[in-house]
């Protein structure tokens, strides 16, 4: 039994991916025995050798393999993993959350007749023989099973899946992002034996063979993003329109809070898309989250559930958010949040009555 953790070293996302995979390997992957005994390596795709050494230090496993690849082409990167996948050298491929990881493991599973699952919350290996060392390559894995959990039904439920064919190809859930930094092991760089000639045309920059060209990074993720906020105010559809959303946003600013919205708000163009919180937007972990006029659909809740304290301000005392909040205020949300803003000045001091 051997796994490979996959990292896209061709973009700036590599450190985030490495931390998430390290956290998943430490806490998300379990088995019959200690998973620390599982043999594994980190495959880092790199665009050029100059950046390679810095990336090796990120790897969550001792063994690291660097593979040259064209940036942002998981379709070609999958090709360079095929030999290991088809030959049974790697039984479990683990990719980070996000479109890169999802495309990579899906294409790899399709080409190697394996099974793919994305959004993996946790996974359990069973039936791996207790060879010396545990799960050594070449061991009989006929009875081995991989079960994994992932959110389904728009985050209303968690599904328990079984990946029925090897190689098992899993992309972990975004909830592992922001994993704690782990002490990096002493690394051993393995030779790049997996690279295939199929990856070469795009890696060489031949535009005639590359259907995706002229790539331009228009905007980096905003600094001080919602994901790092300590105090967040979230407006929902109950704000009633752009005016209500604007008033909540102004109140948030006045309180020194960051401002986010639920999906119905952005779908009605009452706020820009980069304010979206939830399963398809930002995932926050503030000390305080005030949810104003949002019903609290699970897709939104995914984005706020790591908040230490959630207060719901909603005129509907039956809204789901009222069950999933620490404190509930049943009233007009805009009115209450404006009163709260008047109470707290921008420097966090309370106005005296």
């Amino acid at each position: 039994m051997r796994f490979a953790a996959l990292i896209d070293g061709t973009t700036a996302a590599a450190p985030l991916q490495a931390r998430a995979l390290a956290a998943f390997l430490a806490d998300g992957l379990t088995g019959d025995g200690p998973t620390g005994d599982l043999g594994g390596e980190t495959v880092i795709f790199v665009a050029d050798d100059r950046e390679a050494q810095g990336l090796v230090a990120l790897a969550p496993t001792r063994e690291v393999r660097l593979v040259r690849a064209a940036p942002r082409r998981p379709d070609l990167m999958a090709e360079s993993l095929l030999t290991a996948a088809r030959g049974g050298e790697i039984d479990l491929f683990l990719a980070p959350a996000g479109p890169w990881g999802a495309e990579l493991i899906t294409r790899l599973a399709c080409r190697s007749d394996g099974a793919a699952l994305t959004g993996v919350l946790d996974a359990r290996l069973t039936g791996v023989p207790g060879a010396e060392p545990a799960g050594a390559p070449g061991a009989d894995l006929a009875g081995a099973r991989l079960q994994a959990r992932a959110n389904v039904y728009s985050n209303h439920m968690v599904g328990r899946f079984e990946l029925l064919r090897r190689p098992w190809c899993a992309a972990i859930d975004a909830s592992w992002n922001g994993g704690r930094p782990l002490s990096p092991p002493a690394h051993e760089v393995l030779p790049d034996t997996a690279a295939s000639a199929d990856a070469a045309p795009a890696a060489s920059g031949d535009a005639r063979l590359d259907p995706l060209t002229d790539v331009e990074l228009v905007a980096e993720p905003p600094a001080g993003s919602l994901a790092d906020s300590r105090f967040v105010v979230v407006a929902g559809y109950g704000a009633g329109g752009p005016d209500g959303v604007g008033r909540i946003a102004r109140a948030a600013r006045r309180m020194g809070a960051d401002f986010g919205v639920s999906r119905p708000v952005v779908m009605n163009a009452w706020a820009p898309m980069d304010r979206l919180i939830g399963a398809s937007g930002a995932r926050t972990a503030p000390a305080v989250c005030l949810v104003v006029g949002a019903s609290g659909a699970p897709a939104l809740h995914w984005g706020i559930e790591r908040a230490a304290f959630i207060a719901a301000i909603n005129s509907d005392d039956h809204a789901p958010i009222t069950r999933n909040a620490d404190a509930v205020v049943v009233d007009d949300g805009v009115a209450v949040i404006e009163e709260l803003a008047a109470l707290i000045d921008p420097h966090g001091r309370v106005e005296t009555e």
Partner: protein
Amino acid sequence: MSGADDTRASGSPGPLRVLVSFKVTPDFEALRPADWAAGAVEAGTPGAGAASATGASSPGASATAPRDEVASASGTHAAPRVPTRCVRRVLNCFDESALELALRLSDTLAQRGGGADLAALSIGGREIDPHLTTLLALGYERAARLDVESDLDFAPAVVASLIARYVARREPCDLLLLGCCSGPGDGGTVPFRVAEALGWPCVSQVTEVEALTGGGLRVACTTDEGLLRLTVRGPAVLAVGNAVVSRLRVPTLRDRLARRDAPVAIVAAAELGIDVAAELGREPTALRGLEVVDRARRGVVVDGATPRDKARLLYDAHLRALLEAP
């Protein structure tokens, strides 16, 4: 390329051929907590006793009530599902964006004297037909439903093979648009699987699509790096994500009358050479159980006569200490 407004990848003259594949899903927000709980019970026998189905600690679903798969009288496992048959159907939000983006692309090309040939596809039963009729009224030239009775909710490989085969045999196109993911599976692998089957590149999390006057498309997409723009030349799959364009336009009565005779094509999977039952048996990932996610918190009600009173109580009793903490 034959002209300034010809965006076709093949270099042959003619309008840009765009197929949008979309899904109509139950409105999950219309279900109550009891419905989800009932679904989980129906899916299996409650009380497996484990803190987590896998025994691992996950930051994404920290408090769950596990439910096991059900063993039927025959000894085989029933498919775990939440019953949603009576719930109203809605367009998957990402697919809705894809449908509108295709219309806007067509509008742009028409203003330049060219055009796009739009087609729409969905898989399922008759409940989809009103949506397809609406799309015909909005300007889609063709609308088709793959008539499949089988439950494909957790069968992305089967769904992808149906879409890819439809493109290959019935609706050749230069551009395939679809939403980046949809419920109840929410896995988001279908666009990649279709691209893989067709041998095409896939751009995911697409937010904008613009036709270039010299041919090709300029596409914006969100990534971990930030917002990217790139040029797509050649047939491609575009998986639409958090696009600003998120609402499908509404046809006028005149639009509907003008296309009232336009038929929705009903296509059987067998016509595409696909045995759905057999494909389902080969699906490489199986759903074994469902768990209700318990998100409940204390829910202390902050009472008062006026919004000002409630704001003051909320601050004094709860927020002050948290916000003033270092």
